[in-house]
């Protein structure tokens, strides 16, 4: 269990942010949240989370635009990202690879599976470092 790690959860659906935050906090993670891409980018730069869980469709800046912006910033260009999406076929495999999106989960999603993915990615990162 990767306790104490900081996760940024981004979704314009407050209920989704809430449920993910409870699941992660119950498992020892620190959670910060944002409801759109602009706010998320500012938080990512200032708070330096260990991993970001973001929705694809959001107002002002969608998930792909957010990741694109994160990759251009030296502070966040290596931060792992998990993307949640209720749309089918929005992210091609090569685009996912190019943007360094670790995993894409389709909505409806299981909080249990999301937690497992976060742990796997953080573990792999810790081993690599």
């Amino acid at each position, binding site marked *: 269990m990767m306790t104490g790690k900081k996760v940024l959860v981004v979704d*314009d*659906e407050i*209920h*989704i942010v*809430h*449920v*993910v935050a*409870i*699941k992660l906090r*119950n498992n020892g993670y620190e959670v910060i949240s944002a*409801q*759109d891409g602009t706010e998320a980018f500012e938080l990512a730069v200032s708070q330096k989370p260990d991993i970001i869980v973001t929705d694809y*469709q959001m*107002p*002002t800046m969608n998930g792909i635009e957010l990741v694109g912006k994160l990759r251009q910033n030296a502070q966040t260009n290596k931060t792992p990202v998990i993307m949640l999406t*209720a*749309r*089918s076929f929005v992210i091609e495999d090569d685009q996912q690879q190019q943007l360094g999106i670790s995993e894409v989960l389709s*909505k*409806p*999603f*299981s*909080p*249990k599976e999301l937690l497992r993915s976060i742990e796997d990615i953080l573990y792999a990162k810790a081993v690599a470092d």
Partner: protein
Amino acid sequence: LRRERSFYCVVAAFAALTLVYCALGFWAERDGVFVPAASVFCGAAAVGVIWLGWSFVRAGGEITSIATQLNCDQTHQIKPCRSAWLKVLTEALNNRLSDETSAQLKEQLKQLQIQNKLLSAQKTHIDQVIYSIRDAIIVVDEFDKVLLANEAAGRLFGFDFATAANKPVSELVEGAKPEFVDFLRQSRTSRAPGSRKEIDFDDAEGPRVFDCRVSCVCDDGGRVCAVVAVLHDITREKEIAQMKNDFVSHVSHELKTPLASIMAYSEMLTDGEANDEQTRNEFYSVIRTQAQRLNRLIEDILNIARIESGLVKVEKQPVSLAILMEEQLQMIRSFAQEKDIRICSEKPIVHDCVLVDKDMVSQVIVNLLSNAVKYTKPGGTVHVFTEVDEISKKVTVKVVDTGVGIPADELEHVFDKFYRVGANKPQAKGTGLGLSLVKQIVEKVHGGNVFVQSKVGAGSTFGFELGLATEVVTAKS
């Protein structure tokens, strides 16, 4: 003929006399009288008989020939015969035949002239049909020369279709669309009976997509003698297909969003992640509200689909819009009070009766009122009123708020299905279907108009206009 007839008579008489003389000589010699000239006469008579026989045989052959010629071709002249008698016969027949042939030829010429006129009229008709077809049609021969091109083809490729015949297709088209010419050549080389390709055009009419279908015309020897190309504008079909995909994508997204909450929260409850009673109750509440949202969404989608397909049952009755609005205002007032929003309404004292489906128009008013309250900040005002124009016999309902407003570039999309103003999404929850439903009910079901005016930060005015019911209709009710 007279000479030949005399000649035959002399020969016949000579032959007869010779035969008589021979008979007498033979009879005299039997009795011992020698007739020295008898054998000479006998020879001459035999020659005459043989000659006559030969003449009859030859005449028989020529008669057979005449009969054969007459059977074969009644209009053709009969060849002259050597026999003088038959010459007379053939001349007479030929005269008769030339008269009949002349009459037949005249009749045939007349028929041909009629057929020519008919064919010419048919060709003009076919040409007019081809020229009037809205699809572009170009036919080229085996040397890439244009055999036929219609007006639509001329418009599409930018050439004069009336003077296009016999010009090389590359000269007319290649500059504008080399890929089209290449496709024609490939189709001819492959001799495929039919091939198709989508070709993009970007001209004064904007970007368009054409479905280009090419077929080869082969002669009896199987050689390609012409290539026919038909270009059909499928821009609209493409747009509709794209809209359909977008709609399905939107619907699935909108349905999955509340479903995601329901499934995540129920899993958390099952896994015992809600530690206390308060958290459990909160989770139950989220599941219930998201299930309601899902139900509302499905109802809205079904209502729009029913209206669009014309399957909705419409029960129109005369209704006073002011009274209808007052009924809906009662329902929205408590919600407005919770948000500290003031609602002002004015009741007109004039006749404002409209012939509408009461439930549907109530839905329109509720959607407009709830949007106004949802997107107005606490302390704001929602002003509702109706205006009656007795001259144009129209009644207008306006809902004016002091809310967040809508950017000018997004105004034209607010009545589109699933469209939500990006900047206003955090302000309130919505499916993006409410205003689409308003538009469908007002315009498609009741033949009215919807309108919107807005300014960011100052507020929005949404409304609709319906025709007034006549006094007769109102009185009957």
